[in-house]
């Protein structure tokens, strides 16, 4: 295996006596789609937050492209090329969809002072329009994002994460709360991004069908521990997993 | 469209000088009706209105009725200046107020520019030192009052040292600066110099410092509410030296608020409702009947201002602002001819006045005049 894009080494996070994440290690290779599953409270989101700098891990290390990322602040993490979405909806409600997309990428080029003199779309108009087309948001491109339906906002949210061409994207339950046909569309979109751009991502998901079809490899968390890891079929067949997951 | 309609109506409103006003004498009261100067401004305004009522009932000035308008400066000099402009724009014959020195210092530039006589209750020395021919006092300046009080401290109370507690605003700072100078001239030591804030509540520290200074007397120079609070604290901490003040602290409002604790305070008052003078007593009764409370010195100032204007206008013989201002220079007016003035008074060439004043003491919840001081010029 070549150098992994993301390497998580024995990561732990405890809140007092509660171990939210306990001794978790895994790696993500470039171009890979990794799913993370586990029952509620199994530590998936805490794991994400530790990697992304929202919380500081109690122990362990995170490396990105071979250099340490442990404890870096969220801004630094994003500047290093790691995008993310949140469990809850997070768009800029008062900006138009197109402006949301431009906002998502404009800070990755030039200096802050240069942006003061840059053209209004920061030279990102074409890229935003392409993303709008890919996510089929053309009809609402000029509407304030806050006025869109939940499913559409979710698409905007995900599109934003991909706008700056991140090396890695961490998606927290992208399919939650959207209708089944849109789920299917979303899977196709993500697969397309992976295929065409080699986009790498880690997906937390409750929708088993969605994640099993999308991911090339699946991690199973239970009570903060990494219970199993492997190709979707292998994991699905793992008796302990089925017990932990379905038994919960 | 909306903007333009609004703008147009604004033009109409701002430009609409009342046209029917030629037959009246227009008087503008620009006074403190809110903010820290409320008590002073309200009294002054009420005094003006009472006087206007009486003048109008007696046939007005040179046969013309007086029409008044009142504006609130919010005790804010910038607002006072703007309102003075407004009065000038509306062709004021004279402007009454503001009472606070900080405000009149700024607003009088406007009345001066337009040549409108401007009476003020302000006491800062600087007001009449700017060569403004249109500004006139209704009371002593601090430069007149403080020496009188300092004389009293030096020869009446025979003190060697004084603690000063003052309020840190233009009124308090001005008085404190003037007093410090006067005390130095009389070889009286300032043993403590304590600044307090407008609106201050807890005077424990200020009183403590005054006590620690161990001075022969305490000079308190605060606004009304704060004067009352410090008097309570002085009583509580058992301050046993003479407490002296200039005008404010012996005012009726302070006595009402401080109750018992005001007893024993003494000092100099330019004007007081309790003066041994039938005209002033009569004014006090009328004022109380009209407004249901006792006037303080600012009420007398406002009342006096209107009658001073009337006297000067009659002397000038015509409704001419410049002539009226001229008639108030180096001129004396007697109550025999102008009873509304309450006391014989002389204006000098700068707009300062000279007349009798009083040494008073608060006894049994009332201001009692101990001695009447003659006008400076008679000395």
């Amino acid at each position, binding site marked *: 295996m070549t150098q992994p894009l993301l390497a998580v080494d024995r990561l732990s996070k405890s809140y007092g006596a509660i171990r939210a994440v306990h001794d978790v290690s895994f790696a993500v290779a470039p171009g890979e789609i990794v799913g993370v599953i586990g029952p509620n409270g199994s530590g998936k989101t805490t794991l994400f*937050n530790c990697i992304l700098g*929202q919380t500081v891990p109690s122990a362990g290390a995170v490396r990105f492209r071979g250099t340490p990322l442990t404890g870096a602040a969220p801004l630094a993490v994003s500047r290093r090329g790691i995008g993310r979405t*949140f469990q809850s909806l997070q768009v800029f409600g008062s900006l138009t969809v197109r402006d949301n997309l431009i906002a998502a990428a404009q800070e990755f080029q030039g200096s802050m002072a240069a942006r003061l003199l840059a053209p209004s779309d920061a030279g990102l108009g074409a890229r935003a329009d392409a993303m709008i087309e890919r996510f089929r948001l053309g009809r609402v491109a000029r509407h304030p994002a806050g006025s869109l339906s939940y499913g559409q906002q979710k698409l905007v949210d995900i599109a934003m994460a991909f706008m700056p061409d991140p090396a890695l994207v961490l998606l927290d339950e992208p399919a939650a709360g959207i209708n089944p046909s849109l789920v299917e569309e979303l899977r196709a979109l993500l697969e397309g991004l992976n295929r065409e751009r080699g986009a790498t991502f880690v997906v937390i998901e409750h929708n088993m069908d969605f994640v099993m079809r999308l991911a090339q490899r699946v991690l199973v968390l239970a009570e903060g521990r990494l219970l199993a890891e492997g190709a979707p079929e292998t994991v699905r067949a793992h008796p302990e997993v089925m017990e932990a997951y379905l038994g919960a | 469209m909306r903007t333009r309609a609004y703008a147009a109506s604004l033009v109409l409103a701002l430009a609409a000088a009342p046209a029917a006003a030629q037959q009246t004498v227009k008087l503008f009261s620009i006074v403190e*009706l*809110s903010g820290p100067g*409320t*008590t002073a401004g*309200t009294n002054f305004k009420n005094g003006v209105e009472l006087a206007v009522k009486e003048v109008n009932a007696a046939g007005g000035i040179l046969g013309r009725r007086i029409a008044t308008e009142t504006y609130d400066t919010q005790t804010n000099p910038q607002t006072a200046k703007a309102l003075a402009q407004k009065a000038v724009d509306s062709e004021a014959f004279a402007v009454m107020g503001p009472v606070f020195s900080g405000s009149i210092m700024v607003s009088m530039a406007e009345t001066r520019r337009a040549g409108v006589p401007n009476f003020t209750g302000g006491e800062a020395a600087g007001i009449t030192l700017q060569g403004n021919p249109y500004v006139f006092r209704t009371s002593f300046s601090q430069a007149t009052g403080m020496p009188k009080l300092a004389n009293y401290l030096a020869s009446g109370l025979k003190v060697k040292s004084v603690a000063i507690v003052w309020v*840190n605003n233009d009124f308090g700072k001005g008085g404190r600066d003037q007093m410090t100078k006067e005390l130095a001239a009389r070889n009286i030591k300032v043993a403590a110099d*304590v*600044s*307090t*804030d407008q*609106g201050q*509540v*807890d005077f*424990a*520290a*200020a009183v*403590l*410092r005054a006590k*620690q200074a161990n001075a022969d007397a305490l000079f308190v120079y605060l606004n*009304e*509410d704060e004067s*009352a*609070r410090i008097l*309570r*604290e002085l*009583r*509580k*901490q*058992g301050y046993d030296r003479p407490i002296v003040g200039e005008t404010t602290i012996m005012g009726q*409002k302070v006595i*009402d*608020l401080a*109750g*018992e604790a005001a007893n024993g305070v003494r000092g100099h008052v330019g004007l007081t409702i309790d003066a041994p003078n039938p005209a002033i007593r009569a004014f006090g009764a009328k004022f109380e009947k009209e407004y249901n409370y006792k006037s303080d010195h600012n009420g007398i100032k406002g009342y006096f201002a209107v009658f001073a204007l009337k006297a000067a206008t009659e002397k000038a013989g015509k409704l001419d602002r410049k002539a009226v201002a001229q008639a108030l220079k180096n001129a004396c007016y007697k109550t025999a001819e102008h009873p509304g003035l309450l006391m014989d008074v002389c204006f000098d060439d700068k707009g300062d006045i000279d007349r009798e004043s009083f040494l008073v003491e608060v006894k049994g919840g009332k201001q009692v005049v101990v001695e009447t001081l003659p006008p400076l010029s008679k000395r």
Partner: protein
Amino acid sequence: MADLVQLLVSGCATGAVYALAAMGFVLLWQTSGTINFAQGEFVMLPAFAMLAGLALGLPLPLAFLASLVVAALVLGAAFKRVVVDPLVRAGVLPLVVATLGLSLAAKHAVRVGFSAEAQPFPQIFPEGVWNVLGVRVSAADVGTLLVAGALLAALHLFITRTLFGRSMQACAQNPDAARVLGIDVAGMILATFVINALLAACAALLVTPVWFARFDMGEAIGLKAFFAAIIGGFNQMRGALLGGILLGVLENLAAAYLSAQYKDGVALALFVLVILFRPEGLLGRAEERKV
């Protein structure tokens, strides 16, 4: 030494009143995330309600009771229904602005409708002054401290020892869990608003004899209560107590020993330092960063 004690006693009496108002701040913040910038007016209004009662010929105790009722209804229930409820989900800042508007309206309504001048108010404690080892202590100081202390202690007992109080606390800490436990969350929040109004009315009774009833008397007390709450800890009742007393005492000490001109600056410097280095307040718990 006696001088220092003199300042401490006086500062504590003043600070106890700040603490009463600050306590209300903390209660509202804990249960509903409301920062009430009209807190000072919540003290001013009952003072005028009492004056109105006195003017109608009621004796002071009755006027006070009436003002308690009015405060509970208007400053408690109505305030919550009309101003807070519609905004509680919009976050902290809209409520800050709305209560600023309320403060402005209340102040000037009293100014125009009643009077702009300070009104005398009857003394509630006897006039006596004792000399204790060179320290002059007035009945008013002792009374204010005792009453404020008793109120705060009662409130503390009420919240920690009674079922009702503990339910209130549960709502403050975790409304969802409280709801699951069958606690009437809305009712509990309403209760804190009423308690805040009652505390403010009590503060009014204590301060008005000294501060005098004046339309803008709330400006100082509201700001001081706010500073006290932040300094002590915005999410801690004990913090409000500490903050209030600290503020009252510091002002006096600063005026006596440092600079009378900057006496407010000392408390303010402490306030800014707390915000910078210990935003949870001297006694507060750190609030977890929310994602």
